[in-house]
Structures are given as structure tokens and as C-alpha cells.
């Protein structure tokens, strides 16, 4: 199993950055829900400032958004937001692009360069970089302004689906990078028909209709 250099960097950092890691009760650390761990970690971290990059906590009402823009993208002392991710490292095969990155990129500068041209697969990879982090903050802000969800207490009868981030680099026709697009997607494959949803439908036009409309457009101008 090859883990990316970002992951390795994060693994080594907590020893110097936060002794609080050890204080996390083991039972709260589950592979599927690293998010529950992140929050207390962040609060602790914000009180003890890390030496390299200053951690500014911005409170968007109920969300804790660590601002990374002031932090060099891959400084050796990782911000505390990252220090929780060793727990997060699941044995997952990275994409070939990331695989190449882990073998080729040795110095920090090449890592930064690489981050701007490849799409990360996992949250722990992407969160290292300011562009992706800012994109995620923007996306969360957009979801909040749309009132996409409200927080409710968990009840055992609920079928809670997971979510993950999807990272895409949008390019212009000439190959230059247009923007870093981030989307939060729900992992809908655990939903059950009849319980979580009743009907599905996708608006897909029939091929014959497209051809017919084109023909009418051509013939009737």
C-alpha cells in the first residue's frame, strides 16, 4: 500500500503539534465517521497556536472553517485541522495520478506544482492545498445559503447516508485551468427504495427527438 506524501507528512506531525491526539477516546474513532473527531480537535487546536502557520478560526455561525490561506500549502508543521487525519487514513488505493505524485514528488515545491494539475481523490489529500480548501469553504457557504440542510439529533431509525467531496479541475479549451470545482455528494447507494425514496426519474431526451428537431430546424430555418 503506497500512501501519498501528504498523508505521511500528516502522520509525522501530530507528535510535535498536538498532544491532544492521545486524549481522544479510542471508541470515538471510527473509520467511517472521522468528522465527529474533527470538531473537538479543532477547538483544542485553535487555542494552542501552532508555530508555523497561524490558525485563524472563522465562525460561520455553526461551522468551524479553518482558514488556510495564510498557511503555506505544504508546510512541514501541518495545521491542526490536518493533525486529525492520521486517524482518517484508510487503506484506499489512490488514483494513478496520485500514485505518480507519491513516487515522483519528493520536495515540497514539486508537491505544490502537482497539486495544481491533478485531481485529489481523498479529502485528506485535498485539504493540504489552499485552492481546494477555499473551494470547499465556498461550497459549504453556498450549501448553507441555499438552506440545503438543517441539523437534527440522530435517531436510530434514521438511515444516515455518508457524504464525500469530489474534486474536479475545470479546464478551458486551450488546456489552461479555469477553476477548481468542488462538490459535496451524498453516497446514495445505501438508500433503500420505498423507505428513503419512492420514485426515480431522469430527464433524458430520446435520440430520435433530437434528430427530428435538428431536421425541422434545418428545413424550416
Amino acid at each position: 500500500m503506497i500512501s501519498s506524501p501528504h498523508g505521511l507528512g500528516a502522520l509525522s506531525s501530530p507528535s510535535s503539534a498536538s498532544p491532544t491526539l492521545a486524549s481522544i477516546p479510542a471508541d470515538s474513532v471510527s473509520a467511517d465517521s472521522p468528522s465527529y473527531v474533527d470538531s473537538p480537535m479543532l477547538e483544542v487546536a485553535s487555542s494552542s497556536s501552532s508555530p508555523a502557520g497561524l490558525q485563524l478560526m472563522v465562525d460561520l455561525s455553526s461551522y468551524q472553517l479553518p482558514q488556510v490561506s495564510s498557511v503555506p500549502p505544504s508546510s512541514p508543521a501541518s495545521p491542526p485541522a490536518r493533525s486529525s487525519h492520521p486517524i482518517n487514513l484508510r487503506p484506499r488505493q489512490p488514483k494513478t495520478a496520485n500514485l505518480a505524485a507519491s513516487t515522483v514528488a519528493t520536495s515540497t515545491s514539486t508537491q505544490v506544482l502537482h497539486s495544481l494539475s491533478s485531481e485529489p481523490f481523498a479529502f485528506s489529500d485535498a485539504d493540504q492545498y489552499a485552492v481546494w480548501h477555499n473551494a470547499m469553504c465556498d461550497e459549504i457557504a453556498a450549501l448553507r445559503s441555499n438552506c440545503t440542510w438543517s441539523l437534527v439529533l440522530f435517531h436510530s431509525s434514521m438511515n444516515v447516508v455518508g457524504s464525500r467531496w469530489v474534486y474536479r479541475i475545470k479546464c478551458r479549451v486551450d488546456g489552461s485551468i479555469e477553476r477548481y470545482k468542488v462538490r459535496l455528494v451524498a453516497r446514495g447507494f445505501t438508500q433503500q427504495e420505498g423507505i428513503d425514496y419512492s420514485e426515480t426519474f431522469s430527464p433524458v431526451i430520446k435520440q430520435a427527438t433530437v434528430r427530428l428537431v435538428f431536421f425541422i430546424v434545418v428545413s424550416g430555418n
Partner: protein
Amino acid sequence: MKQPPDFVASSLPSHVCRLHKSLYGLKQAPKAWYTHLSDFFLSIGFRASKVDTSLFILSDGTNIFYLLVYVDDILLTGSNSAMLHHLIQLLSSEFKLRDLGVVHYFLGIEVQSTGMGLMLRQHKYILDILTRAGMTSCKPVDTPVSPSKVILLPDHSFSDPTRFHQIMGALQYLTFTRPDICFAVNRVCQFIHAPTNSHWAAVKHILCYLKGTTSYGFHITRGSSFALHGFTDAEWAGSIDDRKSTGGYLVFFGQTPISWKSGKQRTVARSSTEAEYKALADGTAEVIWLQYLLTDLQVPSVSAPTIWCDNLGATYLSANPIFHARTKHVEVDYHFVRDRVAKKEIQICFVPSRDQLADVFTKPLPVASFTAFRFKLRVDPPPSA
């Protein structure tokens, strides 16, 4: 939903998100999107087509506008450019959208204007498929299916079924602009559940054919005739495995092919007439659907559509209640077609096999006749080349 990683509300870490709106990835997300979209279109005066739910029509007596939806790709066209502009503004007030101007790329299909009309092609898509299959430097062949090769021999199963599925999926989408490979693709798709090496060889044959015809596109030319006519054909007991027949149809509107299909019939036919009759019923259903669509699009149909069939027995059957003893078991198809003929909604005529354009959807053909058929299917290289 669980709270997204690293964006957990600090005060309520063990809460979960109750979604008020759909997120990408949920099973109900596409339907929610469609409902939202169609509600808006209906509110600004469009009406949904009854036969294709992704088509919306706006008509105010003199002008008419069509709106095609493919999830989040929208194509809007109309007869009045000022009002068209107004509609785009209306849409952008509700949705965040990019106006791509005059269409030259829709659903991965390149739309080019030629002197005579439009050419639709998937040039880049073909190159992508060839790259994905590692076939960029293969030797081109003249037809997508070799008439001499049989692909159904018992064989070792293909080592990488996922790759097989991916290529086949891509080829199926390619039939959007390439009716010439429709039969070849459908024939291999029948084995998609358990591909063998000989099936993969057949796929490679299709790719070699595409290699030689990457720049070819589907031509839509300005037509003077606005009549529907269709061709139906069947290859009786063409499948060696189960002796089911292969049926196909091709429907023209004026001089342009609009709809086509090639496929193995669901039941075994006991005579060639029966197989032809089933194909005829499928073709009739398609022609009727297209008629409804034309009514929705407010294009007046001039006369009852004609369906050409190269089996005399089948044409007689559609007109007269004869031979009933031998066709008892195809009763549904039989009544379906005969009803339409009796009401003069369609007419069925005989066409000699050499002029039967649906032939190319039912059997492998030698090079000369395949090329002739391809020309009639309006699949040609771009005019300048």
C-alpha cells in the same frame, strides 16, 4: 446525512443533516431536478410533450420554440430570435446558466453547419474510444462486421469484462450518429453478460472499422418532403444459439433517417413471415410514436406513412385476414398492425430486397452493398474532405 468531513458544527458534533434539498448522489436527485426544471418551464408558458417528457414546446400562434433537456444540458431553438433572447434571459433569471450561443457541441456531439444543412458527428468521441481500447494504430477495415466470421463458437471467456462493458457502452452511445454500426454493436451487446475472446475480436473489428471512418458524420440535409416512411426487415432464425430472429427498422422523415433499431426478437418465430411481421409491428409502433411527436412539434403530416417490407406474406397479412391458422400465435402483433392499416393510419407496401434499407440492421453485408447502404443512411465524410 452525516455532516461533511471537517465542516462539523462545533456545538452539535453528533447531529446529522436533515436534507431539505437534494444533493448530487441521492437516488431521488434527478427527479427533484426534473420537477424543478419542468415546473419552471411550465410557469413561463411551455408545455411538455406527451410522448417525450424531456421536450417542451412554446407556441404563440406565429412563433414556435422547442426546448430539449438532457439532465442539465438544455437546447433551445425557435423561429423568432428576439423572443429566443427573451426566453434565455428568463431562464438565466431562475438558473445559473451559461449561454453557449449557436450550438456546435451538444451531448458530446459536434454539430457542424454544411452548405446543405447540418452534420452531426462524434469525431473526438471515436478517437477517445480508440485510445481507451489501445487501438489507435490498428489497420482499418471496410465493414463493421465480417460476413464470414461466426462469433458464437465456444471460447475462453474474456479476461477483462469491465473493459468490455465500458467499450460497449461507449459504442452504444456512438450509434447516436452512426447507424452504420448499429447492427454490429447490438450483435456483440447480446453477449455482454459473459464476453469471450471471440466477442472481443468482434469488438476490435468494429473499432478497426471506426478507425477508417473517424471523420464520418451523420448528415441532415434540408428536405422538401415532410413525410414519414419506414423500412422493416428481419433475418429469420439468425441467432445460432437460440434460433431467434434479428429484426430491425429504419424510419425516414423526408430524406433523413430519424430513428433506427436493430435487435434480437424476444420470441422464436416459426416462419420468416412471422419474423418479418414482428419487425413490422415494431416499426409500426415507432412510426406511430413519431407521428405523435410530430403532432406535438406542430409539424403537419401530409399523408399516411408508408412502411416498406420485403416479405410478401407479411404485407398480405397486414391487409387481409387470411392465413389465420398459421398466425394464431402472433395475434397481438397481427391485430396491432392490421388495425392501423384498416384505419388508414399507415400503409404497408412491398419493396424488393435489394432496395430494403433496413437490411443493414439485420445481417452482415459484403463491402459493396454495405457502402451503398451507408450512403443512404446519410453517414458520410465531411463535405470539404
